[in-house]
């Protein structure tokens, strides 16, 4: 596991489960004047996939989405859907629909008229419009609010109307621009589940933009982590957590300990610790998740093949089922450890971890 090189993990897989590629973003770059927002982004989205573009604010995630939707044109690069070049089409010719961050429901139209909008402009027969709108409203449980104006319904309900308005057109791809960010925490969690099951039900590919790593982990088939206009890693939530490609990814997704080591002839030296690893000589960086480190009592023998270190507890933070403790080890090394709650932590603890769980990561420029 630890021998997979970081650069291999960063390569974008064309598709995950043998499904056909739906959308292909090829070398897309975007700059506003001197400000470079996206650099050479290449990303494939498979049919029926739930892909999350995750990144901090200013990472370029919304810009990338807007380029796919057609509200922004790329400075260079191409966007393909099948054998159709999408980036040369105006937004109203693309078989892509968007759920906007603030829903963007038409205030002068009722819920029903909002949902019918796309079908009406496409001049579908009125009978078909009526039945498809009714079906879409049913699906998002908004039938009883059909005649209301958007200003008369709650944020969560507006969210569902926005979804129905997009899905009723049966797009091949649905883009969602931080659609849950305006909702409060409880409703947000509920909507995450609803959205995910809705996506499974309709089988349409979703590209979901968020800055919330937990949301990304819960919902996605794959996560594309964007940082300062560049893709750091594209992988399933599990892969991205277990095998982060870079130090940035490791720190952005969950908690981690970054260990700075030095490799010499197949042996890593990191402060007082050392373990064998198939890596080229030179400095190396490792991500060690807090839950991979175990607190042992002094009487217990070291598990064969594991590394053991003793340290002084600096801090203890309660997180419900688990708690995070910070331990000062010899040589200036501070480790964060996740333990079950109420463990009754003494002042001095013995820590143990398997060298296999120290994942080598690339250094991220500008950080660490």
């Amino acid at each position, binding site marked *: 596991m630890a021998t997979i090189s970081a650069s291999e993990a960063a390569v974008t897989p064309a598709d995950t489960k043998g499904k056909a590629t739906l959308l292909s973003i090829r070398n897309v770059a975007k700059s506003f004047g001197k400000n470079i927002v996206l650099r050479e982004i290449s990303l494939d989205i498979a049919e029926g996939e739930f892909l999350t573009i995750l990144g901090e604010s200013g990472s370029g995630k919304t810009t990338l989405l807007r380029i796919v939707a057609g*509200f922004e044109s790329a400075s260079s690069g191409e966007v393909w859907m099948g054998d159709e070049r999408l980036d040369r089409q105006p937004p*109203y010719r693309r078989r892509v629909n968007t759920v*906007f961050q603030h829903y*963007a429901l*038409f205030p002068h139209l009722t819920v029903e008229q909002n949902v019918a*909008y*796309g079908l009406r*402009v496409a001049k579908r027969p009125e009978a078909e419009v009526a039945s498809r709108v009714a079906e879409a409203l049913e699906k998002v449980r908004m039938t009883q609010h059909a005649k209301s104006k958007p200003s008369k319904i709650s944020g969560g309900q507006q969210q569902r109307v926005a979804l129905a308005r*997009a899905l009723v*057109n049966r797009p091949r791809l649905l883009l969602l621009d931080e659609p849950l960010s305006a909702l409060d925490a409880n409703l947000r969690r509920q909507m995450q589940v609803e959205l995910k099951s809705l996506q499974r039900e309709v089988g349409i590919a979703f590209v979901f933009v968020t800055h919330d790593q937990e949301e990304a982990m819960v919902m996605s088939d794959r996560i594309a982590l964007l940082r300062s206009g560049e893709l750091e890693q594209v992988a399933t939530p599990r892969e991205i957590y277990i095998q982060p490609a870079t130090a940035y990814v490791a720190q952005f997704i969950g908690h981690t300990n970054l260990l700075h080591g030095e490799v010499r002839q197949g042996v890593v030296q990191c402060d007082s610790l050392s373990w064998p690893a198939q890596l080229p000589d030179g400095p190396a960086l490792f991500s060690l998740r807090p839950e991979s480190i175990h607190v042992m009592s002094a009487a217990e023998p070291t598990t064969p093949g594991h590394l053991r270190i003793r340290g002084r507890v600096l801090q203890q933070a309660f997180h419900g089922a688990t708690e995070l403790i910070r331990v000062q080890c010899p040589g200036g090394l501070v480790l964060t450890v996740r333990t079950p709650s109420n463990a009754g932590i003494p002042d001095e603890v013995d820590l143990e971890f398997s060298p296999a769980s120290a994942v080598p990561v690339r250094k991220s420029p500008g950080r660490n």
Partner: protein
Amino acid sequence: MFSRAYKTIVTVPPLLWVTVFLLIPYLLMFCYSFWSVSPAQTIIHSWDLANYRTLFRVNVYWQTLLRSMWIAARVTIFSLLLGYPLAYFLSFYAAKRKDLFYQLVIIPLWVSYLVRAYAWKTILGSDGVLNTLLQYVHVTKHPLEFLLYSPFAVVLTLTHIYTPFAFLPIYAALEHIPRNLVEASHDLGATPAQTFWKVIFPLSIPGVVAGATFAFVLSLGDFLAPLLLGGPSGIMISNIVVSLFGAAYNWPLGAAISLCMLALVVSLLFLSERLEKKWSFS
């Protein structure tokens, strides 16, 4: 929160102003409209509806009122036809030059009304710029007489003067339309033309109503443009009121006409407010 003395100090001056310069004059006018003038040119303080009867029986009065409304209606339509595209262009396409264009629309308002009306006189007159040019390029042999001293001249001048008043509320309404609604419309497959008619225009209706009200009410009561450029055929109701209060010395009839116009304008304002409310969404 504020002391009683402070409240008195800030509310009394405006109340006083409104009373002295608005309520009392209107009350006086209301009284005058029921009085009459004796052959010896004195005001007879007897109360009857004779003036209102005259207003509807003598053709020249109600015909002029109708003509004034027709002129005002045309001015309103032309102001909207000019003001709306201008506001739309500025709001959606002017980008960085927005402020510059906005100022260019506003600047004419700084120039005296009288100067602008006179300018049209020199353009439209028989020796004016337009006629000279038309003759020079041999479009006509003789100066076109209908250009000046006609309802045409009045409509043209008033349109020029009141277009900014129609433009401003429309521009404000367009600026208030969230741009993501336009994006959402395109996203749902609507062409730019469909987006305009289904989203942008309906949401700008309050501005259109406000602009139309400004243009109509202001030009209905206008008296300078018809005086300078209207000629006998371009006379408007305000000119009649002016002459009734002046040379004709029939204040009671003048007051009756004024009150009719006031009633007309107030009901229009009321109607337009209702319309604006009906079409505004927040």
